[in-house]
């Protein structure tokens, strides 16, 4: 459905001293799609996210944003491109309300340099409405009074408010109950439907299979395969995660066994 991926990584390498964490990783995320990034613990998911987010700089490889090669030297560069990471621990201030959190660090000011609360409140409400969020009673309640799912909602809505092009969600459902997980997944879907390239990192196979359009599987620092959701079964994905290959998809036998190059 898209010609150019919003975000594309080609042959990305990253090592910490002698430890090769990412080797020749290829990955792409398209606008309007949810791209899941899965892999066992230590497969390199977090490192990859930090490379995309600018916390780490890659050792080698290409980084294309909307088809253009870019270099990301820090979180600010990534933010300027429109890459937003919603962390597992959420990074919200409990003592501030929803509006204040959504605009934190990017407050709207009036002509006399005071906070423009009305505009911020209206924009926050509009954003939540555009995501069909109905679970929040008032945008003026403090985040401390919100449930885990509602907090996740606020964090995701923040990225919509700032018109991010790539939103990376790090285990958004890890701490949530069944009903709240459903809500957040529906929200992830709507986020993608707004034209955002969503990258979903999750351990939960049900979440991934339910919501993803494309699945990238990391295996010991290599991209075992990036496959369309419609073309794989759960068994295949799990095989890819645990052994790096499944039938004729994935790494070659040699690559998957002698993984640490």
């Amino acid at each position, binding site marked *: 459905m898209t010609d150019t991926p919003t975000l594309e990584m080609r042959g990305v390498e990253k090592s910490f001293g002698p430890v090769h964490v990412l080797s020749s990783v290829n990955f792409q995320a398209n606008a309007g799609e949810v791209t899941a990034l899965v892999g066992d613990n230590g497969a390199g998911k977090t490192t990859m996210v930090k490379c995309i987010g600018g916390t780490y700089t890659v050792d080698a490889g290409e980084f294309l944003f909307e088809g253009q090669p870019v270099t990301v030297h820090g*979180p*600010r560069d990534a*933010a300027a491109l429109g890459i937003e990471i919603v*962390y597992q*621990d*959420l*990074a*919200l*201030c*409990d*003592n*501030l309300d929803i509006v*204040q*959190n959504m605009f*934190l*660090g*990017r*407050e709207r*000011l009036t002509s006399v*340099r*005071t*906070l423009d609360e*009305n*505009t911020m*409140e*209206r924009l926050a*409400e509009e954003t939540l409405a555009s995501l*069909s969020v*109905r*679970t*929040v*009673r*008032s945008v003026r*309640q*403090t985040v*401390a*009074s919100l*449930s885990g*799912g*509602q907090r996740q909602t606020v964090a995701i809505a923040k990225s919509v408010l700032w018109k991010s092009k790539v939103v990376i969600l790090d285990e958004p459902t890890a701490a949530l109950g069944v*009903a*709240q997980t*459903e*809500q957040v*997944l*529906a929200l992830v*879907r*709507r986020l993608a*439907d707004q034209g955002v390239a969503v990258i979903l990192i999750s351990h939960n196979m049900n979440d991934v299979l*339910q*919501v993803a*359009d494309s699945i990238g599987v990391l295996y010991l620092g290599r991209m075992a395969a990036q496959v369309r959701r419609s073309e794989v079964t759960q068994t295949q994905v799990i095989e890819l995660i645990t052994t790096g290959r499944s039938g004729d998809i994935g790494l070659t036998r040699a690559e998957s066994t002698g993984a640490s190059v």
Partner: protein
Amino acid sequence: MSTQTDNTVEPGPGEVDRPAAGAPGLGAYTSRYVRRVRGGELGSIPAIVGLVVITAFFAIVHQGFLTAYNVEALVVQAAPVIIMAIGLIFVLLLGEIDLSAGTTGGLCSALFAVLSVRQGWSWWLSVIVGIALGLVIGLSMGWLRARLGIPSFVITLATFLGFQGITLILIGGQGSITLQSGPIIDLENSFVPVWLGWVLFAAFVLVYAAIKFNDALTRRRAGLTGVPFSVLLVKILVVAILGGVFTYMMGLNRNVATNAFFATKSEGMPWSVLLLVLLFAIMHFMLSRTRYGRHVYAVGGNDEAARRAGIAISRIRISVFVICSGMAAISGLVAASYLQSVNSGAGAQNTLLLAVGAAVIGGTSLFGGRGRIIDAVIGGLVVAVINNGMSDLIQGANSTGYNWIVTGGVLLLAAGFDAVVRSRSKAS
């Protein structure tokens, strides 16, 4: 691809649809307020209730408690405490502490006294240098905290002791420096002319009402639910009545010696009240309406989140210490005005504890992230009422001892209350 887009979301238990915007009913406003209070956001309610209760108590057991004379004494006693507490609120909002605010104030007032009395400098230059010293002290302590990462408790405990020593040396063997009459002495000992008091009162109420109505109107114009006008009117009325009663009381002559031959009257509010109102307005504005204030709350609530949002947290951290020490310097000058002298123990003993107590009693959390400037005013009045009432109630050699015990008890009560509220709002 969007099969599961809609209708998968069912409101969970306790999650109701948002009420339609633009319906600012009094009922909805009240229910929202009640919900906030039950959720642990008590604001100033406990402190106001406490203030009313202890004031009523002292008024009953001690006849002269609410006379104009005593109310004025209360205000001039409370002024330095409130000013120091206003500064401390900034530090407390970040979850830090400044144990040296008292001795910083003492040191700055000692420098003021040395310069203006011994060195013969003009009063205003001495005031500027004294406050500047406070700002430099805050800058250094904030730098040590933010850049070197020394806990503020340790830094300020060190300066608490150190500044006491410097003050002792500055004042020297005399033990105290008596201030010359002038604007600084006038702050706590001279009075605003009664007519001017009323003019300023009227201006204050008008400005307050204008701001409140302007806020409500712009909100309504933006299509947001605002505070109902009825609530607004009640608030303005309460402010007008309290201010009016105070202005009226301060307009009464408090000098019992006034007669046909001896015409000296003492009437009108102390000038320090105006200073208080001014400082309150500036600091309240800064904290509630500017980006800076928002960032102070954010750093106090979750510094990691603030950092990720691009806020320069070390700068915020340094700035609160600068504000706190600056306000401590002003507080020290007001205290000097009250005593009409600066002694070698200025700002030591329980000065700081009273100010921290004022902030905490008012509702500012010791854990950071929660607090407002009004807390300093309400809490400062509570502290002053206890001090004043106790000293009237218990005479004799042990009165100071009992006074301190009661103040300490109230502080502990307020801090315990703070901790309970915090754990409850965490749990909900």
